[in-house]
Each structure stands twice: as structure tokens, then as C-alpha cells.
């Protein structure tokens, strides 16, 4: 990806924040989404590659599930495409975003600020939508692929603590997926991940089961 470094207003004067998102895959996914029929009471899974790779539809057959994951996406990209999602007034949004922000060293406060913007956009556009903020998954740094070496579980925890608070402030639900996917050391379970960051495609039924156990699905 072309490494355009754009400072946002938030950090003007501090350090340059890479807020780019509009790559080819992002555009292709948006073109695909635009072709899909509108669904009433949609259940939207919103996020990056970890969401995109989930066969949510298969695991929840017959339900109005929309996979709105875009590989590589970050909190800036979600903000940019959120109005279209919100306009449909979905019944639920399951959000997981942030690891690509961490990958490119976007400061945690900037990500948190983006989450607040996300919450605001949904509140305003579709106040009845049930929003579930899912914890950013831990990485497994013993096998983590080089491209994601900048992601630390310390930052993941910092971000997740803030998400829990944002959920509380907005009357949203926070779910701690670490209960399902972290080992006793707080690392992404080795057997669930091929690369220390992503989940195996076969791990997703367990995720859905976890959300069910929390009565969110």
C-alpha cells in the first residue's frame, strides 16, 4: 500500500498518523456491497480480515447476516463506510476493528477517538441498532508474522479497556473474546491461528457459539 502519511486534526502537532484505507481491496469490497440487496433487520459483522474470513452466513443459515469485513481495514476505513451500513438500520452490528491501526502504529488514543466517532455515527443514524463492541483479539507473539510485529498485547489490552468503557457510556455491549480465544498467558490460542493474528476458518463456529452463550445471537 502506498504509505501516505496524513495527519489528522486530532494529532496535529504530535506525530503523523497513517489514516489511509482506500486501497483496491477496500474499493472492490464496497463495489460488492453496493450490489447486494438491502436486508431488513440485518445482522452486520463489521471489521477487517478477521471478520471477512468468517463464514457467518454458513454458521447462521437463513439469518439476515451481512459480512462487512474488509481485509486490511482500520478504524478510519470503518468510519468512512459506516453511513451506508447505518442507513439500512440493521438490527445488530458486531464490530471488531483496530489491529490494523495498531499494526501501523496509530496511537491508541487516536483509535479510541475513532471508536467514539463510530459510536456517535451509529447512535445518530440508527439509535435502535444493538451494537456489540468485540474486544480486539490478542496476538500470539511466539509465531506472529513479521508484518504485524508492531502489534503488542499490551496495546490490545489498553484498547480493549477503553472499548469496555465506551460500550458502557453508550449503552452498548462489550464482549471479551479473550475468554474464548486467549490462552492462560493472554496469547491467541496456538491451535486457533495459522499466523499469530488471524483465526482458522474452522474457529468461527466457536466464536458464534460464544456470542450465543452471551445471548447476543
Amino acid at each position, binding site marked *: 500500500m502506498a504509505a501516505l502519511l496524513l495527519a489528522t486534526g486530532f494529532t496535529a502537532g504530535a506525530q503523523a498518523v497513517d489514516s489511509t484505507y482506500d486501497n483496491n481491496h477496500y474499493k472492490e469490497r464496497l*463495489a*460488492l456491497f453496493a*450490489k*447486494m*440487496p438491502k*436486508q431488513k433487520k440485518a445482522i452486520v459483522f463489521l471489521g477487517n480480515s478477521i471478520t471477512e474470513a468468517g*463464514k457467518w*452466513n*454458513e*454458521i447462521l*443459515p*437463513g439469518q*439476515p*447476516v*451481512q459480512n462487512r469485513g474488509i481485509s486490511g481495514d482500520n478504524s478510519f476505513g470503518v468510519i468512512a463506510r459506516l453511513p451506508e451500513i447505518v442507513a439500512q438500520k440493521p438490527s445488530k452490528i458486531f464490530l471488531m476493528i483496530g489491529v490494523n491501526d495498531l499494526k501501523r502504529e496509530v496511537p491508541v488514543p487516536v483509535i479510541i477517538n475513532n471508536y467514539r466517532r463510530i459510536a456517535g455515527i451509529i447512535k445518530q443514524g440508527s439509535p435502535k441498532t444493538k451494537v456489540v463492541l468485540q474486544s480486539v483479539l490478542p496476538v500470539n507473539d511466539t509465531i506472529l508474522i513479521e508484518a504485524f510485529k508492531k502489534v503488542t498485547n499490551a496495546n490490545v489490552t489498553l484498547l480493549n479497556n477503553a472499548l469496555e468503557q465506551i460500550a458502557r457510556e453508550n449503552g452498548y455491549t462489550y464482549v471479551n473474546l479473550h475468554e474464548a480465544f486467549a490462552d492462560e498467558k493472554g496469547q491467541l490460542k496456538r491451535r486457533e491461528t495459522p499466523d499469530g493474528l488471524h483465526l*482458522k*476458518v*474452522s474457529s*468461527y*463456529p466457536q466464536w458464534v457459539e460464544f456470542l450465543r452463550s452471551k445471548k447476543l445471537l
Partner: protein
Amino acid sequence: MKRMILLAACAIPAFAFAQTVPKIDSSYANWYYEGRMELYNQLNNKPADILFLGNSITERGEWHELLPGKKIANRGIGGDNTFGVLARLNGVIQQKPKKLFLLIGINDIGRGLPTEVILNNYRRILTQLTQGLPKTKIIVQSVLPMNEAKLPYAYLKNKADKIKALNEGIVPLAKEFNLTYLNLHELFADEKGELKADYTKDGIHLEPVAYVDWVNWLKQHKQL
């Protein structure tokens, strides 16, 4: 996506048929296939209205979203071939779909398998499906054309004759098993018989708009 499958690690001995031809590559169980199977094996007990069975062309279809309210099972696996489909029919049968769309064979052609070998596999697939799913409406779809100018893969070039031969062999098989055969070329081929340029970026896979038109075409032909 890796379309050329590495043979060494997962090669399975070719069946007896192969003794008359130089070498039959009957492998299918690569890492991608195995990963999908780990998922699908967890889902086989979920009832399906419509099951789509095939390779990447099937897998990339957003059938669920295009057919809201239906219980869809997308059983496409990128890179899969007729051997791979044969090996996973038990799970498909277990799912007892009301309707099943089959589209498979281009990866067999891509690795240069003789048409008779592919058709023999088709016969085995259709035998097992019709026996295992006597109440299911099974729809056999023609292997799609490709767009030569857009194909970046040398191993897929100049295969139009092979596709034609395969489809000509599938037609009587479908009839023999009393199944509906759909000639998708009516929708997807241009006047030269190639995959319409607007439908594809790489000459073989389909753009989102193609799936929208495909579903509409199936509806027009009262298959959905």
C-alpha cells in the same frame, strides 16, 4: 489464491483408469481444502434449502445475500476439482439440501486431465448424489467459458475446446441421471464464445455483478 496445487505432498495414487494414460494428477487435499473441510465438517448437520457445490467460482458467490431468507450452504472450495468433490460428497449428502447446484471441472481442465477422466468422475459424483439424495433437485451447470485475453495463467490458455468437449459430455450424463442441465454460456459467453469481459477481471473468476445476473438468470429459468 493458489490455483496450481502442489502435487508432491498430497498426491494420491491415480486410479486404475490412469494406467492407459501417462499420468493422472488426482490430488486435491491441499491446505486450503483441508481448512475449509475443518469448517464444513462442523456444519454438516445444519439443514440447507440450497447447496452450491464447486470450486472458487462457487465459493466467491455471495449466495446468502443474493437469496435472503433461504438457508444456503456454499460448498465451494477454491482450487477444487472433481476428485476433491468426490471425496467430500458424504458431508454434502448428510446435509440433505432441497436443491443442489453443481459446477466443477475447470481446475481439472487446468491441470490437463483427459475429458474422459473428468467425465468418469462426473458419473461417480452424479451416481453418489442421486443415490444419497433421492429427494433433492440436482442441477448440473455447464463449465463456464474463459476470456483468453484477460487470463494471466498460461496453464489455462487455449482450453476452450476442452471446455466444449467436457460440457458436451456432461449433457448426456445429466440426461441419463434425469437431472436438469443448465447451459450457463447463454448468460456468460459473448458472441465469440468467451466469458464476457465485463464479468471478469482475470478471465476465469467472476465479478460481483456476474453473480447478481446469474441469480436473476436462474430465477428467470425457474431454477430458484
